[in-house]
């Protein structure tokens, strides 16, 4: 039997917009993944700790508040500091086109903006997950 992909869906920072995160969580569940949803207002430290304890394959973060340029790289770096480099990191939310190259360069592997079809997200995760 194939094992389910485990995904942490997290909302970093003080941003209270959680519809997108919930839509994504449900879509991933419906695609057969195990989704750990941690709720609102998580610090990067909390996200990293949860990602480790839950042994997720994917860390998926949603930000609509504009704080993506600080929070996303922070999570990536904290994971690296803990020696965790084999996880797929993706982000989404209200993120200006111009910021995306910077985020990709810091180690977030894809950014999904408003209007994204959840099918594309599922597809991306399935094809890019790093661990067998």
């Amino acid at each position, binding site marked *: *039997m194939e*094992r*389910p992909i*485990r995904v942490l869906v997290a909302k970093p920072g003080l941003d209270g917009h959680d519809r997108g995160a919930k839509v994504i*969580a*449900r879509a*991933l*569940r*419906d*695609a*057969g*993944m*195990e*989704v*750990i*949803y*941690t*709720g609102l*207002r*998580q*610090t990067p*430290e*909390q996200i990293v*700790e*949860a990602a*480790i*304890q*839950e*042994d997720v394959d994917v860390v998926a973060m949603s930000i609509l508040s504009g704080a993506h340029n600080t929070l996303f790289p922070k999570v990536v770096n904290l994971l690296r500091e*803990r*020696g*965790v480099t084999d996880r797929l990191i993706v982000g989404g939310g209200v993120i200006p086109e111009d910021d995306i190259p910077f985020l990709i360069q810091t180690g977030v592997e894809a950014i999904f903006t408003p209007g994204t079809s959840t099918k594309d997200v599922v597809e991306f995760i399935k094809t890019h997950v790093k661990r067998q």
Partner: protein
Amino acid sequence: MNIEDRLLAGDKIACARLISMLENNDKEAEEILKKLYHKTGKAYIIGVTGSPGAGKSTLTDKMAKKLREAGKKIGILAIDPTSPFTGGAILGDRIRMTDLSLDEGVFIRSMGTRGNLGGLSKATSSAIKVLDIFGCDYIFVETVGVGQSEIDIVKMADTVLMVLVPNMGDDIQAIKAGTMEIADVFAINKSDLDGADKTKLEIEMNLDLNDSKAFRPKVIKVSAIKNKDIDTLLEAIFEHRDYQMRTGNFDIRRINNARQEILDLAKEDLINLIMKKAVENDFLNTIVNEVYKRKLDPYSAKEELLNLLLN
């Protein structure tokens, strides 16, 4: 360092990885547990069960926090249902435990049931062992919200805590019918709401009827959200533990649990073994067809199936 040594050294990444491997039926992980099994048995295992939304996660969070003040190392396994249609799951118990998430002495793991009935996942008992080896003093196991048949937790827990809420109406009938017997302690959570006294009374009256049980479970009103009377609840849990230690029931329970576990594991392998043989040469389909056509009865068919194992 290999995963086994890292686990023993208290490495969370290794602990988490090993649990995943066990969830995925990894043989290497089973070998590691074989080798380290003698190190288990030290942790006290508390099952937390009760209807969906009763406050199991919130209450576990508060109890864990209290035990942390006493310097205890805590493991939490939180089980949520896997969709039988897609195999996916949303595991949301962590939402209620975010203030524990940065505590060095707490390890929280969410698990999907992955098709297992009984309120736990198949790997739950293995995950308990991993956390035990990892050095947890207390391990909380939160089951999926119970109906009447999700009572596997008794096979693993040293104390079962049943979480109820006020104004359950007919739900309390369901609890009476099936799951009441497994509780060692009752918590009436959300007692900040009206009706907690009435629920407590109903439970007490039920316990009055059932005087066969030598140990009478305590019924404690608490409010997880207000962090109220958590101490009293923990005391009731410890009282049950001490009672068991005093009377030898603790050993009896663990012996029963060990027996149950061996038989459950054997049953699973046996079924797999039979199935493997049964599909060879289309044997299963053949006898199914014969039973359908009334040429063979199901009892004889079963005997033929079992005979496969003997030769």
